[in-house]
């Protein structure tokens, strides 16, 4: 596909929504820890049904309505670290002030205006990811700015949803972790800009040092439209480097949908609203799916022939969109004649299908095989989505697939999904409190500082500033560890050890600091650090580990050892002279097993070699 597009000419408008988990001690509405668990650690399970309710204005949200088509039973896993609030069996506790302050701090960094009185809302979500059927969310601040000319519309404080643990099972450990949601205006015009803005906002969030780190703790939703297209919201882009790709692919998709629309209109295409029962037609079919299904229904799309099978995104065809809509009714998928004969359906069967529906070559027929009720529901969905192809791009919420393409998720939700959270009292944000919030230094500023003042290489400085170990780095440098040693240990050594399977997360910050100080003070050789950390990671106290690894080799011992090695290899040294130094160095380092600093070994060895060679002279 061609990625060299003129986005300006296409009228690309994009905005992002960033969801970042906060690293608070407790959850947003209960006192449970914000701790993620393994699913198999769950201690209990219960199950519930959800249904759409009206907003206080008396409307039902269309996205919620669509979820209601199937009565679905959800299972929930509980843990010894979750409580009745997550179960929706107890009213929420008052809003967590630590979380509110963290959100306000971010708002202040983005130059936003705080809301005078914060009202917690219930955002209707009945896909099962919230036991209550809603996500609690409050607008905290409005109208900020990020980078040049990009407006931040809103900042909300929300509760995290439960994690999906299977088809209809959800795990309650994540539910209720505080989350800030930052929404930009649709002020970006190229895929690269979107990615830059996401990176920049991510950096600001991490600068507060009160956000969670690691995969899944930050998620981006992207809003995209092109001229003539429609606003599409793409949910849950977890990897930053995929954002630009997602935007590109959505632009391509919308372009293709517009091209298809024009072609359909040229062909005078239309959608036949009749749903045909063709069950008997396939009574003798070799297709297992059709044979098994209680009902086989067909819909004729007049003039759609060839277009339903057309690719609109890598590995996505127009027909894939129809299938997504149909799945909302609980069917597994659909067949369309652009892809037939295949899947056990023969050319003869396709022919008789066309005859039965009085269709011609320019048409496409969609087949749905399922229980009657589900199949009828799915046929109506296909008809409505197919009819929309005549208009262009539908407004939708979509979810990202692994490669950056997207699939239909639900209609764009409207304001009707919001209902006041009556169990949580409003919170006033007074001016005094707002002014007392301290804005932390940006990580980008830190990086410059580390390069300028500490003399770190700029790229290493940036790596340190943006790393999770920034805090311990600063402590170490303050305590007298040389910046390079601290940076190398924290970024290089630990990463290598982790790759080696060492559980470096078991090493407490305090232990890390002690280890670096021991190296700085010469009590262990820098070369011994990996070995030392490896031991500390198994739970051995630092002091014990230091005496284990550093079997105190005194300079005299070292000298004796060096002498011994030189004498053993006298011929070799005589032959090579000082050029033998490197090889001998290796032998000695192996002997001392890292307990002596390489520089010390090198200088002792140099001296001893010189005198050895002097002595050998006739």
């Amino acid at each position, binding site marked *: 596909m061609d990625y060299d597009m003129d986005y300006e000419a296409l009228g690309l408008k994009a905005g992002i929504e960033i969801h970042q988990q906060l690293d608070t001690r407790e959850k947003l509405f209960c006192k449970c820890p914000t701790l993620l668990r393994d699913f198999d650690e769950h201690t209990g399970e*219960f*199950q*519930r*049904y*959800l*249904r*759409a*309710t*009206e*907003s*206080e204005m*008396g409307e039902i949200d269309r996205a*919620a309505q669509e979820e209601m088509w199937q*009565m679905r*039973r959800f299972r929930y896993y509980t843990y010894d670290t979750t409580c*009745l609030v997550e*179960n*929706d*069996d*107890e*009213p929420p506790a008052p809003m967590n002030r630590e979380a509110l302050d963290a959100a306000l701090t971010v708002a202040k960094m983005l130059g936003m*205006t705080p*809301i*005078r*009185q*914060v*009202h917690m*809302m*219930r*955002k*209707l979500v*009945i896909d099962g990811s919230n*036991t*209550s*059927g*809603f996500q609690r*969310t*409050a*607008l905290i601040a*409005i*109208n900020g700015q990020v980078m040049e000319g990009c407006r931040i519309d*809103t900042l*909300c404080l929300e509760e995290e949803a439960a994690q999906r643990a299977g088809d209809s099972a959800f795990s309650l450990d994540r539910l209720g972790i505080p989350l800030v949601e930052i929404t930009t205006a649709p002020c970006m015009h190229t895929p690269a800009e979107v990615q830059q803005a996401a990176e920049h906002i991510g950096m600001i969030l991490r600068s507060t040092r009160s956000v969670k780190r690691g995969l899944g703790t930050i998620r981006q939703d992207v809003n995209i439209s092109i001229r003539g297209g429609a606003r599409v919201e793409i949910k849950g882009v977890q990897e930053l480097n995929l954002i630009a790709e997602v935007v590109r692919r959505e632009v391509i998709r919308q372009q293709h949908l517009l091209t298809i629309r024009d072609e359909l209109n040229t062909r005078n295409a239309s959608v036949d609203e009749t749903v045909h029962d063709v069950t008997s037609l396939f009574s003798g079919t070799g297709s297992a799916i059709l044979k098994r299904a209680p009902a086989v229904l067909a819909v004729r799309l007049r003039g759609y022939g060839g277009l339903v099978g057309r690719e609109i995104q890598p590995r996505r065809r127009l027909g894939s969109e129809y299938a997504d809509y149909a799945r909302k009714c609980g069917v597994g998928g659909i067949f369309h004649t652009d892809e037939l004969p295949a899947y056990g359906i023969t050319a003869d069967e396709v022919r008789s299908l066309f005859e039965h529906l009085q269709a011609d070559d320019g048409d496409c027929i969609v087949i749905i095989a399922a229980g009657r009720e589900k199949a009828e529901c799915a046929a109506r969905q296909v008809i409505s989505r197919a009819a929309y192809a005549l208009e262009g791009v539908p407004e939708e919420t979509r979810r990202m697939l692994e490669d950056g393409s997207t699939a239909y998720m639900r209609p764009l939700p*409207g*304001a*009707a*999904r*919001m*209902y*006041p959270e*009556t169990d949580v009292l*409003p919170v*006033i944000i007074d001016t005094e409190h707002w002014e007392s919030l301290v804005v932390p230094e940006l990580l980008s500023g830190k990086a410059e500082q580390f390069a300028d003042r500490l003399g770190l290489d700029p790229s290493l400085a940036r790596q340190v500033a943006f790393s999770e170990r920034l805090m311990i780095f600063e402590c170490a440098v303050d305590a007298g560890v040389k910046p390079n040693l601290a940076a190398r240990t924290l970024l290089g050594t630990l990463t290598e050890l982790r790759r080696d399977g060492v559980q470096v997360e078991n090493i407490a910050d305090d232990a890390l600091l002690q280890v670096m100080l021991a190296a700085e003070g010469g009590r262990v050789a820098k070369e011994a650090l990996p070995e030392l950390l490896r031991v500390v990671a198994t739970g051995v106290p630092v002091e014990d580990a230091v005496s284990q690894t550093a079997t105190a080799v005194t300079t005299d011992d070292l000298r004796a050892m060096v002498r011994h090695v030189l004498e053993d290899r006298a011929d070799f040294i005589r032959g090579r002279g000082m050029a033998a130094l490197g090889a001998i160095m290796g032998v000695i380092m192996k002997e001392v097993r890292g307990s002596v600093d390489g520089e010390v070994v090198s200088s002792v060895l140099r001296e001893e070699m010189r005198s050895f060679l002097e002595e050998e002279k006739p």
Partner: protein
Amino acid sequence: MELTGTCITERDGMIVIKLDNGYNIGVDPSACRWLERPEAAAPRLAEVLQDPALPGIAIISTGGTIASRIDYRTGAVTSQFNADDILRAIPRLAAIAHYRTHQVCNILSENMNPSIWQELAHGVYDAIKNGAEGVIVTHGTDTMAYSAAAISFMLDTPVPVIFVGSQRSADRPSSDNVMNALSSAAAATSPLGEVAVVMHGSPSDDWCAIHRAVRVRKMHTSRRDAFQSMGMPPIGRVGYPDLDVSLDMEARLRRTGEPLLQDRIEERCALLQFYPGMPPSLPDAFDGCRGLVIAGTGLGHVSTTWTPVLRGMIEDGATVVMTSQCMHGRVCDRVYDTGRDLLKIGVVEGEDMLPEVALVKLMWVLGQTRDQEEAAAMMRADLRGEIRRCSAHGL
């Protein structure tokens, strides 16, 4: 920076505004400018369709969270729906029965009182007289067990009278109101013939328990399965979502015949929970009460310092009934001296009655007779299944 939105209410000196994105915020009134005042649109209400071929059921509403909605004045949840709204909110009810609805009151259950019990008893009685094959009473859960017990004593019913509520408000997608209401309709059309409470049987949406009204207690502040039968298993269960009703051998079954209403009650009764060191001046303050139920310690005791005060009350014609704050098990005042002293002065042992059931029963008994001896005998007798002949094993 200007934002536009819809003013929803003014509360605590703040104007609450719904922004176009659906979020509500509170702002200082001085920061607001009125743009227009649109006419309030009348809500479009769907017609409630009924199938007259199905059994006729009366829904009598008293308010409560089975049918509640946000009140913008206070921002809290209050009961605002009438019974028609319940049918609108739970369409599947229409497949079980056809309904007549009647609203006795619209209150939160903590505001319930004995004179409303009487109105409620009349409402239920009239509905049965008018041919209802079952009655559903929607009620806030806080005092539902009291009301259900009161109706149990005041009304001898040949058909099921089912009390139902919800623990989690009806305005949330996860509310227990739908399953509870559907289960109550299933129970109201079942072969049952007594007053019962139908609520969640577990934290899951899998079954509802049918509890005998005079043996049930709200045992949790917020859980869906807060209601528990005490000292006996539930008298039946309703599966969900199949709504299959199964009744225990103990359940009283539907009968032909007329309901009997005996709605007189003596409101001058009280319930007192004894605690160590509770001064005798406290029961003294109930002087003038015609009946007093004590939730005593253990087997049914109070401090010996109380004996003279209680003797005085009984001599003045009051009935004093002893129950236990243990909730499980039977009162026995024949084991220790303090208990024997209580029996000597005429305190009535309340057997294994729940303290609040004993209170409601005492009100009703004293409404039926003024004779102390007869009242004591009625209190000791099992009238509606409130006293078990044998105590169950375990808790």
